[in-house]
């Protein structure tokens, strides 16, 4: 990257990449919100719309990969610029998976609403709210280069895991009492599992943000972060 003109152009492209990544994050988050709302309201139309609504996310997934690829090839970025693009590639994949999980939730919901409700849904909407917040915070952390916020996302993942375990234990008791609830209860267990996975993707994004900003790799055993490039 020789001239300042070059650098300016690169920075503009990088900015554009971030904007599109945020758009994608917004779409993925909305898909999750609608899927869970469809479940809670037993709204089959809404559920079907979520299932059919994957296309914009898939298009952005491909577009963003292309942008990253082009930036790498044309500018051969170094240091923080390189880390930003590598982070964008990974975040892109995470967001696409979140979109897929929203569809999985909608599909399980479509099965679920065929049966009578097993119970009043309390913890699943709570899980959904946490997962969405984690996703939003992770993306905000990405845009603001805020490692403190990213760390908060990592800390929140445990809450989600605990809720999933709690839901599982509670539904077991329903299934033991009445085998007729097994099918819909399994759907709810699946849904809680999908929400927990969404939290995992938000966690991945938060880890990528920390890597992008401070070059510290905090994956697998947070706190023992090693800087990249060390031999």
């Amino acid at each position: 990257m020789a001239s300042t003109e070059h650098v300016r152009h690169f920075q503009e492209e990088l900015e554009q990449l971030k904007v599109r990544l945020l758009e994608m994050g917004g779409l993925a988050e909305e898909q999750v919100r609608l899927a869970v709302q469809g479940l809670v309201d037993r709204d089959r139309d809404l559920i079907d719309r979520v299932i059919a609504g994957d296309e914009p996310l898939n298009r952005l997934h491909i577009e963003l990969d292309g942008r990253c690829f082009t930036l790498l090839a044309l500018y051969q970025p170094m240091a923080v610029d390189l880390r930003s693009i590598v982070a964008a590639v990974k975040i892109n994949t995470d967001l696409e998976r979140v979109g897929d999980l929203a569809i999985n939730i909608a599909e399980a919901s479509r099965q679920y609403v065929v049966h009578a409700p097993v119970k009043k849904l309390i913890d699943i909407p709570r899980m959904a709210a946490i997962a969405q917040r984690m996703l939003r915070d992770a993306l905000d952390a990405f845009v603001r280069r805020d490692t403190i916020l990213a760390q908060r996302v990592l800390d929140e993942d445990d809450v989600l895991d605990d809720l999933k375990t709690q839901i599982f234990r509670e539904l077991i008791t329903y299934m033991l009492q009445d085998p007729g609830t097994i099918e819909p209860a399994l759907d709810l267990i699946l849904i809680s599992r999908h929400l927990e996975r969404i939290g995992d993707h938000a966690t991945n994004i938060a880890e990528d943000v920390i890597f992008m900003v401070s070059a510290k790799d905090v994956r697998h055993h947070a706190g023992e972060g090693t800087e990249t490039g060390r031999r």
Partner: protein
Amino acid sequence: MVQTAVPVPTPTVTPTAFVPAGAPAKIDVRQLNFYYGPRRALDNVTLQIRPHEVTALIGPSGCGKSTFLRSINRMNDIIPGTRVEGSICIDGQDIYAPSVDPVDLRRRVGMVFQKSNPFPKSIFENVAYGLRINRLARSRDALGERVESSLRSAALWDEVKDRLHTSALALSGGQQQRLCIARALAVEPDILLMDEPASALDPIATQRIEELIYQLKARYTIVIVTHNMQQAARVSDVTAFFWLGKLIESDRTNKIFTAPSQKLTEDYVTGRFG
């Protein structure tokens, strides 16, 4: 040339200086200051360079990297009004000690320049020249063998073996540069200094020089100045970043280009200045 009496300097390593583990330093530079008249071109540079590694010196124009390179074989001696403080030891010997013969030093520390500068002689004579003046070949046959092995080492033999006695000036730019490398290798140095060796070459010729650097490091210690950051990233094991005569940071090359410790280094390698 004023040689300042240097008491054994306390090793001062800046927090971001790369400290090589294992093998002792081939080139050990301590608290080096260099002056062109009143102007200080190098400011308290301490750097250890390990054997059989490629060290790339990067930094904006005028940052002192070429001055640093040229001080390793005392090429700066020929510029009037220059002055050196601190020490540079090669294999533990201070190269600025009065007992050191700069001509002998330059045989051990070869140099390749930005612009290829073959003598207006035949290809053979270009490589044989250093061998003749240093009386390094005992016979005509021995001379021929040394010329051939040097040209082979510089990955040029196959292209010139049938025209060894034609003018070196008829070679292409890339070939001329490899001829200069062969000429430097002929006198069997341990260290090879390269001052932007590929900056005047096309991408293919550049690639050949880079491949050559990779092969040569098995036998030589190489220090290269380059303005091309990608080139530094591709060919070197260690990268040292200079700015305004100071060594700002030196570290493993993959560290410098993925996660440098210093803000200045990061700004430079990402093209934000320089």
